[in-house]
């Protein structure tokens, strides 16, 4: 209850990369609101969402809290292409044998700050989660992934994976990632990896030498890069739509 009334600042670890001016100007009741979902045991829910470019000038924060029942599955695909401050936050609690599959992409330029924040609670044994986040930024934009995995005392045979990679197309862009693991069980597999770099120039020249114009070559390489995030999404149509939505931003704005 009290949580809904406190306005976060950048001193809060979870908000350290957020846009301070946006936070200060926000109404805490709106900002700190959660959508709450429950997925019944054994059921599957899929959600694909796009925070669209240009839709909101000032900023947007979406927060989703999901409880996945025993043996259930939650599949979430996200493209965060909005500005100027756009944050998507998911808090997912997994019961016994449940699975959370997450693919997220932040993509944008200008002064955009685009954040993906997840907190996955493996509350019971045998739950699995897989999170793949890709960031493509240019201009002075920032892409952030803060991912926290918590494994409860009794949640043996947990298997949790988290992977973040960023490509910065211009020198002024940046990316931040902070994986956090809090593990109280002892029979647990948790993996995380992160890499931040530029687009592979050698691959770009190889494609150009075959006749692909630079914009098309870059689009092909970026498509391959972000496709990783959506590789596990089982709905083929949704997967392609997410890819197209992300790449459309590149067409309009990228350097």
């Amino acid at each position, binding site marked *: 209850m009290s949580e809904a009334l406190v306005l976060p600042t950048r001193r809060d670890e979870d908000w350290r990369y957020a846009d301070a001016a946006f936070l200060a100007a926000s109404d805490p009741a709106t900002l700190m609101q959660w959508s709450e979902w429950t997925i019944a045991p054994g059921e599957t829910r899929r959600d694909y969402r796009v925070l669209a470019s240009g839709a909101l000038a000032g900023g947007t924060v979406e927060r989703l809290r999901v409880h996945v029942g025993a043996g259930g599955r939650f599949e979430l695909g996200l493209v965060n292409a909005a500005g100027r401050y756009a944050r998507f936050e998911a808090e997912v609690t997994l019961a016994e044998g449940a699975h959370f599959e997450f693919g997220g992409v932040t993509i944008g330029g200008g002064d955009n700050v685009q954040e993906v924040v997840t907190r996955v609670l493996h509350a019971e044994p045998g739950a699995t989660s897989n999170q793949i986040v890709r960031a493509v930024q240019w201009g002075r934009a920032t892409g952030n992934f803060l991912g926290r995995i918590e494994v409860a005392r009794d949640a043996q045979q947990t298997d949790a994976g988290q992977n973040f990679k960023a490509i910065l197309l211009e020198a002024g862009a940046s990316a931040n990632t902070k994986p956090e693991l809090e593990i109280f069980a002892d029979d647990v597999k948790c993996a995380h990896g992160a890499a931040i770099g530029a687009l592979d120039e050698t691959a770009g020249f190889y494609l150009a030498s075959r006749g*692909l114009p630079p914009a098309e070559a870059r689009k092909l390489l970026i498509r391959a890069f972000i496709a990783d995030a959506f590789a596990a999404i089982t709905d083929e149509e949704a997967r392609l739509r997410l890819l197209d939505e992300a790449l459309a931003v590149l067409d309009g704005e990228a350097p």
Partner: protein
Amino acid sequence: MLEITDLHATVADKPILKGLSLSINAGEVHAIMGPNGAGKSTLGYTLGGRPGYEVTGGAIRFAGQDLLALAPHERAAAGLFLGFQYPVEIPGVSFVQFLREAANAQRRSRGEEPLSGGEFLKLAREKAGLLRMDMDMLKRPVNVGFSGGEKKRAEMVQMGILDPKLAILDETDSGLDIDALRIVGEGINAIMRAPGKAVLLITHYQRLLDYVKPDFVHVLAAGRIVRSGGPELALELEEQGYEAVVA
């Protein structure tokens, strides 16, 4: 077709090509041989327009155009193909996906109709067959998990699909076993031995030249062509080594 005049080029501010001149006419096969560090690969990359290979002097005319004024993809569309010594692996992008886009980008820039999916696959299957490569391999990500020999054959399949006027083949023979060498050699002949086409082979060894017979052989040393001759020059090099011939 290709006229290189007094070419000077640097890589990371280090002069590599120091006054190289070379003229290639349609219908000819030229071989450039030379010791390590002579500038052979730099010549290939400079002709292809690779970023970082800076031309500091001289001129290159290709098919009536100033080659140096063209971006790499425009050079390809003008009919230049560069076969890589180390073909690049690109995860997540399949050969057929990118080659169809590349072929059609070239066609568009020449004012030709793009190939349909069906037409493209037929062409790709034909060229893969020429190099005895399984079509399924072209559906895989570019060069990922390919052996050295498979990569070189895939280069030649790409050359067949793109149908260039001039092929610059940088050590296409390296990494090939005896059978693959013959297949690649025959592939080059089938694709490039035609009126209006020409080949520049960059190689260390005589062995590829047994299959692709050159009309001219040049020795590149310290950034310049120091000797030119007929096919017999390659044999002389093989027998006596570069040191004796260059000296």
